[in-house]
């Protein structure tokens, strides 16, 4: 997902969470981002500050942690972590938007299979929220 789309999605999810939990103000957001998403952190943080709703999130601190991409072959069991440098530019761009298209570009380095599983470092999720009721 793209940085701006992602920031928008994160903010909208936080607003919904805050509403359902009755939080008036968010103090801290713990976010995890999979490395596979290849988010430009600076752009992402900038988008967050631009999109944040004034009252709910104005004092919120965003803790962002990038989680390594871990891949496991379903065919031979080999586990590896993706080295960004080894992916060509077009593939990297496509994977940035839709991580699953990695299956069109990457093969297991041991056995050549496209049947592998992304065991870590995919997606973006809100790990925790702290706020005031």
């Amino acid at each position: 997902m793209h940085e701006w789309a992602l920031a928008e999605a994160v903010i909208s999810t936080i607003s919904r969470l805050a509403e359902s939990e009755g939080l008036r103000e968010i103090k801290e957001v713990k976010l995890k981002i999979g490395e596979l998403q290849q988010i430009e952190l600076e752009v992402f943080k900038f988008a967050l500050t631009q999109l944040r709703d004034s009252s709910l999130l104005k004092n919120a601190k965003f803790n962002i942690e990038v989680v390594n991409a871990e891949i496991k072959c379903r065919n031979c069991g080999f586990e590896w972590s993706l080295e960004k440098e080894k992916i060509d530019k077009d593939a990297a761009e496509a994977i940035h938007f839709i991580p699953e298209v990695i299956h069109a570009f990457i093969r297991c380095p041991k056995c050549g299979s496209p049947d592998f599983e992304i065991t870590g470092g995919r997606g973006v999720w809100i790990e925790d929220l702290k706020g005031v009721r």
Partner: protein
Amino acid sequence: MDRGLEGRKVKMSDPRLSIIDERLKDVDDIIAVSSGKGGVGKSLIASAIALTLAEKKYKVGLLDLDFTSPSTHVILNAGETHPTEWKGIIPPEIHSLKYMSIIYFSGNRALPLRGLEASNALTELLAITRWGQLDYLIVDMPPGIGDATLDIIKLIKRVRFLLVVTPSRLAFETVKKLIELLLELNVPVVGVIENMKMGESTFIRERIREIDLKYLGEIPFDHALEEAIGDPNRFSKTVFAERIREILEMNDYLKGS
């Protein structure tokens, strides 16, 4: 008082889910062209419907959700078009319709995905695509009643299904299962199109009426169709496209339910 939500976070913590509604909020009508059965003409019908609506000056989007065998880009001759990156992805405009397909990301390579991966890719595509204001979003569905069908029902609450069936009893057997599933889940069905009609049999028409669904119309087997694939101008002059025009006109451009 400071409060953490640790432990209760899982249900809503995937940010993609809350953005999909936002992405589709200015789209008036979302119609999934589906069948359960493969090879019955879903992609051609979805493309022809989208092109015809665009011809009628409606604002139309066409979304190809078949990740295993995307084909609408071939029908439309999408060629070298590309989406634009702007706070997400803006679909390119081809023949007056906004178009999106996995091919913009996977190229023409094979994309072998297992169930959950296919679901993730579908969710991601819906979350990043900015359609803007549309009268219709036509969705070309993959065959089967598995992942993509369940996902679209889950992710787009107001999706309506248009079903394609061929005169074969074998095709109907499968489509019937999809119909039962949709009715059970209270998913609206726009109606059924019978494609590749060759004889005079009324078998399908009768079965459809028996279950109180709308029989939208039939399309004959068109020998000139294959030649027109990849040439939208020629395609729009085929008997096939002409019949789609008639069907849409007869059925009030699929409005209402």
